[in-house]
C-alpha cells in the first residue's frame, strides 16, 4: 500500500517540467524530495496531490488508479511555503475546518483539535486570529490543519523555508517525531541537504525535472550514484577535483601525486573525478595516512560553532568545514590534511565507482 508513480511526465506549453518519474512510496514512510529551486519538486507534489494531471503516466494510491481523479475526491493534506490559513477563522476553527467539512460530531472535533493543538504547542492561542500570530505559529496552525485530516497522503512543500533558523530547527525536530507516528505517506520537499538528513527516511534527489536517485537517506548520502547527487546532498557542496590514475599513482589537480592502495588502485588507469566532503578536509593531521596540501585562504566564515574556509586548489574552488571556531585570516597560508580513505571516486561521466568505507566517515555517528 502506498503511492506509486508510474512513468509520470509533465509538459507545460511544450516545455518539459517532469521527465519519466517512477516512484514507489510506502504508507507510513517519510520521503524527502531534495533539489534546487526549479528542479520540479513543487510540480511533482502538485501531481501527487491531484492539483495537476500528469501529461502521461499513471498515479496509483493504495492500489487504486487515481490519475484522473480530482483533488477534492482524494484524501490529501498539504502544507505550503506560505502560511495558508483561513483569515476569518480563529485558530480553533482553522484546525477544525477539515473535520467540519466532513461532518464529524462536535465533541469529536473538539477532542481532536485539542490533541493536535497540544502536539504543536498551540493550546494557548486557540481563540486568536491567524494574523495575530507570528510566522512560526501560523505555520504550526497550517500543519495542525493538515494533520487533522485523516489523509492517505501528507504533502509538505518547503514548509519551513519562510521561518527563521531557530524555529526551523525546532519544528523540524517535532515534525520528524510526528511523522514517525503516522501511517500515511509523508512527502516533504526541501532545498537543504541538512533538512533531508535530519528528517531521515527515504530521499528522492531531483534535478532538472528528473529523479537522480532514490533510497534510504543515509544510504544515498554515503553512496551518491553520481557527481550530481553528491553535490546536491552536501552543504556546502562536495569538493571535486579532476584526477588521473596511472599505474597505482593518482595525480590530483596539477601537481599532487600519491601512491594509492586498496580499491582505488584496482581501477583501470585513466581520468576520474575525485570528490571529498568539506568535513573531511582538516586543518590538523588526523591520521598517519593523511596527505597534505598547501593553500591560501580566500574566505573564512564562522557559522555558529563551525568554521568554513574557502580556498582554491589547482584552480578548483574548495571548502573546508571544521567543527569549532578556527578563523584564519584572508590571504594567510594554510596546510590542509585529507585522507584518501575519504575519497569518492567518480568515472569521467559522473557515475560513482568508489565511496569511502563507513568506518572512515564521520556521518556514521550522526546519521
Amino acid at each position: 500500500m502506498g503511492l506509486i508513480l508510474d512513468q509520470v511526465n509533465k509538459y507545460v506549453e511544450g516545455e518539459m517540467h517532469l521527465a519519466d518519474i517512477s516512484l514507489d512510496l510506502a504508507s507510513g514512510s517519510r520521503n524527502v524530495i531534495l533539489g534546487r529551486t526549479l528542479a520540479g519538486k513543487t510540480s511533482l507534489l502538485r501531481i501527487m496531490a491531484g492539483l495537476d494531471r500528469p501529461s502521461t503516466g499513471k498515479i496509483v494510491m493504495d492500489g487504486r488508479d487515481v490519475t484522473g481523479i480530482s483533488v477534492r475526491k482524494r484524501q490529501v493534506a498539504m502544507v505550503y511555503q506560505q502560511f495558508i490559513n483561513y483569515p476569518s477563522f480563529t485558530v480553533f476553527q482553522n484546525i477544525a475546518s477539515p473535520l467540519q467539512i466532513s461532518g464529524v460530531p462536535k465533541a469529536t472535533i473538539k477532542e481532536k483539535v485539542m490533541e493536535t493543538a497540544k502536539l504543536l504547542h498551540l493550546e494557548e492561542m486557540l481563540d486568536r486570529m491567524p494574523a495575530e500570530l507570528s510566522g512560526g505559529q501560523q505555520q504550526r496552525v497550517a500543519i495542525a490543519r493538515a494533520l487533522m485530516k485523516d489523509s492517505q497522503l501528507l504533502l509538505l512543500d518547503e514548509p519551513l523555508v519562510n521561518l527563521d533558523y531557530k524555529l526551523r530547527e525546532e519544528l523540524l525536530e517535532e515534525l520528524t517525531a510526528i511523522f514517525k507516528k503516522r501511517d500515511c505517506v509523508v512527502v516533504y520537499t526541501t532545498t537543504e541537504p541538512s533538512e533531508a538528513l535530519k528528517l531521515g527516511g527515504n530521499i528522492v534527489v531531483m534535478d532538472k525535472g528528473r529523479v537522480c536517485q532514490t533510497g534510504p537517506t543515509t544510504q544515498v548520502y554515503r553512496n551518491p550514484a553520481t557527481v550530481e547527487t553528491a553535490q546536491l546532498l552536501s552543504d556546502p557542496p562536495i569538493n571535486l577535483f579532476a584526477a588521473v590514475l596511472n599505474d597505482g599513482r593518482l595525480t590530483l589537480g596539477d601537481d599532487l601525486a600519491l601512491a594509492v592502495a586498496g580499491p582505488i588502485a584496482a581501477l583501470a588507469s585513466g581520468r576520474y573525478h575525485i570528490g571529498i566532503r568539506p568535513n573531511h578536509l582538516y586543518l590538523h593531521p588526523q591520521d598517519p595516512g593523511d596527505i597534505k596540501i598547501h593553500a591560501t585562504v580566500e574566505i573564512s566564515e564562522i557559522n555558529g560553532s563551525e568554521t568554513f574556509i574557502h580556498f582554491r586548489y589547482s584552480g578548483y574552488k574548495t571548502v573546508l568545514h571544521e567543527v569549532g571556531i578556527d578563523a584564519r585570516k584572508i590571504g594567510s597560508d594554510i596546510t590542509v590534511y585529507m585522507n584518501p580513505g575519504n575519497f569518492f571516486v567518480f568515472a569521467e561521466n559522473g557515475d560513482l565507482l568508489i565511496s569511502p568505507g563507513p568506518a572512515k566517515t564521520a556521518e556514521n555517528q550522526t546519521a
Partner: protein
Amino acid sequence: MKKWQDNKGWLFILPVFIIVAFSAIIPLMTVVNYSIQDIFGPGQRIFVGTEWFKETLTDPRLHEALWRQLLFSGLVLLIEMPLGIAIALTMPTKKGLGSSVCLVLIALPLLIPWNVIGTIWIIFTRPDIGLMGAFINNMGITFDHTASGLHAWITLMLMEVWHWTPLVILLAYAGLRSIPEAYYQAARIDGASAWAIFKYIQLPKMRGVLTIALLLRFMDSFLIYAEPFVLTGGGPGNATTFLSIYLVKIAVGQFDLGPAGAFSLIYFLIVLLFCYLFYQVLLNVGKGESS
C-alpha cells in the same frame, strides 16, 4: 528667544502649510464666517450667531433632500458593491491580452468627464431619438425622465452605476489578484465549494480594498451634483433635488450666503460622520484578519 532660533524645522513645513491654508483652511473659515452673519452687501453684515444653523436644521426641504440623498447613496452602494465584486470575479485571472483588454474597457467610463456623462445619457434616454428611450417607448412603455420622477431616478441610477461600478471592479480585481495561488489550492484540497472559497478566502482577503471602495463610493454618491444638474436640474419637481443641488440653489440661485454657509458645514459634518461610522464598523468586523 533662543529657542525660536533653533526651530528652523518650521521652515520646512511652511510650503505645505501655505498650500493647505489656501486650499482648505481659508475657504473653510470663509464659510464659517458666512454662516454666522447676515450679509446684505459689501460692508453690510450683521452677526446672527447660530440662527442660520437653527433655520437650516429645521428646514423641511433640507430634510427631504437629505432622505432623498441617503436613499440614493444606499441604493448606489447596494447595486455597485455586489455588482463590482461579481464582475471582478468573472474577469480573466491570467496575465495577458484578455485581462488587459478587459481592464481598459472597464476603466473607460471612469475617464469621461461628469458633465459629458450627463449629456451622453440625456441623449441615450430621450424618448424621440435616444437609443434606449426610443426603444422602450416603441415597446409601448412610456419612459421620460423629464416627466416622471421615477424615470429620472432610474436614469440617474443607470448613469451612476455605469459610471462608477468600474471603480469597484478595479479595486476588487486588484484585491483578488493579491491572494496567493496557494490559498486556492489549499481550498481545493479541503474540498471547499466555490461559495466557500468566496466567503472564507476571497471576501476576507478583499476587505481592505472593499472598505476603500465603499468609502469612496459613499462620499462621491453623497456629493453627487453634475449628473442630476445636467439631466433635469433637480427635477421633475424636486424629485432629484439632492443635498448639493439644493445647496447650490440657496447659495447661487437665491444668493443666501448665510444659510448656504451653515448648510455647507452641516453637509460636511454629515459626510464626515457617515465615513467615520463605516470605517469603524468595517475595522471592527475585520479585526485580527490580514488584509
